Each structure stands twice: as C-alpha cells, then as structure tokens.
C-alpha cells in the first residue's frame, strides 16, 4: 500500500539516508525514533510535500514523484494528514477547519457537514467548540482539533505526526484507542509517529525505528518489544543506560 524505496533526502545535512519501508494495506504502522531522526521529514515525503533526491515513494501503486498535478491531487484526496504542529487554518473557526476537507471533496449539504463536524468534536472530547478560533485554544485542544480534521474524511491512508503530543495520559490513551478503532473499522492504512512509545505500542501492528535518518529496525509490535538490538531495546523500554 505504501512503499518507500531507497529514499534519500538532504537539507543542509543528510536527513533521510537510504530509507526503505513497506506498509501493507490495513496496517497501523508506528514510526518511532529520537528527536531529529527524520520521522516528520519521512511523513512529508509520503504526502508528496517534500521530494526525495533519490528513491521512490509509492502509494496506491502510484509513484508520488512522477505524478502530474491532477493525478497527485487525486491521490491526495485519499490521504489524510495530521501535522506535528497541527497546521490549523487560523483564520477559520474550529468547525470550518474540520469541515474544510469535506467541502474540498465536494460535500455541500450544510446539515450533513455540521453533523459530521459535531461527531468529530465529540470523538475528540471537544463538544461545542465549533465557533472557537484556533488562536484561543490550548496546545492539547489544538492537537485534538487537528486529529478531528485529519480523520473527518475517513481517508484510505492517514499519516499522523504526534497525535497525542501535549495531551494528558488519559486523553492520550483515548485518542490512540479512537484512532485504532476507526482505522480498523475503515480498513485504513495508517502511519503514526509518536514519542509516547508505551501507548503507541498498544495500538500498532508493525513498528519501524529511525535513527539519524536511517531505518534501523522494522518488525511487528511484539518483535519491537522483544528486540535485542541494543538501540531499539533501550529506546522501546526507555532505559537510561545504553548506546543512545
């Protein structure tokens, strides 16, 4: 479903180094790794926002870098994305932010739009926040509005960058459970980056770990938890002593 092959990307220094990764359809894939490992950059390459210098990214069998604008838009219509810093449109209300992807996909029935927005806000425990502006929300509230916007279209592929950052443990677990439940209901393919490893691993099917731009581990959740790779072991179990 998602295939990343030998991808290289550099800014001032190399950020992705020969990343090869395969996410099967219907899989919830957890991407972990220390700060600045290149996780967000990899997600942006998946969404076609960044172009790798070398290597290919394929989604739905289409090579993202080779598509013309119209074909790329068609692919993007089937992808949802949550940005690490949410990227809410700050001139639009919470309701309009969440409705935005629906309107772009041609939904015009205002009653249905309002119902789906209200449903999303309930799902992220923010009922009644429709008319607020993003500027007046707390960090965690913004994050949850971002989650609501990313999930409103029930896209076939959803990319989440830190869906639970800045949330308290209870809300955080609720969000992970919600995203897992909806992913399973829709049969969606999901890539989820999170630093909250313990909770992330309660919902993942497969896990990849990045370090300094390279994918150093790839396997099922159980394999990740049982890995003897010193770096993976230290990172997954949050140990202080070790190579990191």
């Amino acid at each position, binding site marked *: 479903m998602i295939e990343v092959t030998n991808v290289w990307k550099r800014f001032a220094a190399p950020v992705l180094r020969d990343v090869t990764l395969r996410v099967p359809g219907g899989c919830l894939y957890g991407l972990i790794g220390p700060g600045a490992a290149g996780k967000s950059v990899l997600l942006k390459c998946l969404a076609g926002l960044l172009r790798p210098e070398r290597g290919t990214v394929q989604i739905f069998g289409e090579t993202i870098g080779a598509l013309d*604008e119209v074909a790329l*838009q068609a692919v993007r219509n089937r992808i949802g994305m949550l*940005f690490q810093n949410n990227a809410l449109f700050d001139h639009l209300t919470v309701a309009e932010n969440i409705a935005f992807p629906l309107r772009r996909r041609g939904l015009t029935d205002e009653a249905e739009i309002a119902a789906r927005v209200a449903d999303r806000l309930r799902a992220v425990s923010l009922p009644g926040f429709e008319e607020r502006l993003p500027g007046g929300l707390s960090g965690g509230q913004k994050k949850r509005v971002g989650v609501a916007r990313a999930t409103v279209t029930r896209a076939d592929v959803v990319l989440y960058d830190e869906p639970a950052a800045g949330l308290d443990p209870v809300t955080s677990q609720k969000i992970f459970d919600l995203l897992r439940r909806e992913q399973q209901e829709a049969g969606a393919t999901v890539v989820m980056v999170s630093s909250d490893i313990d909770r992330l691993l309660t919902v993942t099917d497969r896990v990849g770990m990045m370090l300094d731009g390279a994918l150093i581990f790839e396997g099922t959740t159980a394999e990740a938890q049982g890995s003897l790779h010193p770096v993976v072991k230290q990172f997954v179990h949050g140990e202080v002593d070790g190579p990191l």
Partner: protein
Amino acid sequence: MATEDEGLPAQTGRAVLSLATDVGGVAVLAARLLRRMAPPRLDGPELWRNLHRMGVRSLPIVGVTALFTGGIMVIQAGVLIRRFGAEGLLGWGAGFATLREVGPILIALMFSGRVGANNTAELATMTVTEQIDALETLAIDPLAYLILPRVLAMITMLFVLTIYGDVLALMGAAFMGEALLGVSTATFWNGLLESIRVWDMATGLIKSALFGVVIALSSSHFGLSVSGGAPGVGRAVNASVVASATGIFICDYLATYVLQ
C-alpha cells in the same frame, strides 16, 4: 548569516546571490501564476474577500494621505505662485504633478506598507506553521487558491485606489488654493481641465498597475519563501517592504522614461 569577520568580497557576493535568488523567485512565481490564468483557475469567494479587505479598508488611510498631500503641494508652491502671479497655473501644476507622479507613487507606497506588508506577514505565518503544506495535502493548489486571488485583488485595488486618491489630492489642492492663495476653485478646475491631457492621467494609471504587480508579486514571494520560524516572518515582512519600495522607484524611473 553574514558574520563580521567576513571580507567585503564575500559579503558582496552573498548579497548579489540573494538578490538574484529573490528576483528569480519573483519571476518564477509570476510564470506559475500566469499558467493558472489561462484557463483561469481562481477561487472566486477568496477574490471577493481580498478585494474587500485590501481595498475598502484602505480607503481611509489613502484618503487622508491624498488630501493632505494635495494641500501640502499648494503650500509649497504657494510662494512661487504668488511671486509670479501665476494663479492660473495652479490647477495645471497640481494636476500634472498629482496625476503623473505624486498620486501613483505615494498611494503605492502607502498600499505597500499597509496591504503588501500584511500579505507577506500572513503568507509567511501560514508557511512557517505549515498551513500551506496542509492546503497541499488537502489537494488544494495554494497558488490558485491563496496567491492568485491576492495578487489580482492587489493589482485591481491599487489601480482603483489611485484614481480615488488622485481625486482627493486634487480636492485638497483646490481647497488649499482657495484658502491660502485665494485662487477660486473654478479657476483651479478650469486650469486643470484645460491643460491636462488624457495621456497624463493614463501615464499615472499605467504606473499604478505596474506598481500593483510589483507589490503583489514581491509581497507574495517573500511570504512564501520564508524560513526560520517566527523571527523569519519579521525578516520576510521587512525584506518585502524594502523590495517593494525599491521596485516601485525602479519601475517609476523606467516608466517615466518610456511613457514621456
């Protein structure tokens, strides 16, 4: 980043490079926007929203500036007019200066400070907070949805505001002429209408359209090419205002030369 112990050649080279990058960036932006004009791929509601907030909300400041400028021109010219008894020429002088030069350039500079700077700040904020990226992931072309309406609205509105400002500046001049020099408004308008050719007005308006293009493209370019978070937004606004003003004067120079 320029450091202090860098030699002059290195600094000059860096400045030339960054200038070339920005000029090239503006040209590329212009080409990409032109491609979206034929056939027009434009968000109608966004265009209206921008026409309103860029144009209507600029009316007070442009009006006040224009009225006072007209008045000031008469005060400055007053001494000469009195000495040579050239009251009949007041309308011609004010009209010629305002329509061909002072009106377009002053209003463009005001517009750049108010609307251009605001445009850069908004686009730069949207860029650093990844809102532009978010638009792209929602299968929206930011140039067609966000930039083209702003560029067209700015060009249109500067043109309209220049006509409005010209009129107010001349009214200010006529008023001051009467109050200060005792030149009746009838004499003023007669002097103006008899001597000013349509071409004089057209020159000013052609210039204002050029200035609109300069402000729209440079303010959008600096907004979109921002880097470095919130401090970057401030730098982008600064660079955009400086570039717009420079561009306006260069264009004015060239246009005055060509359109004589």
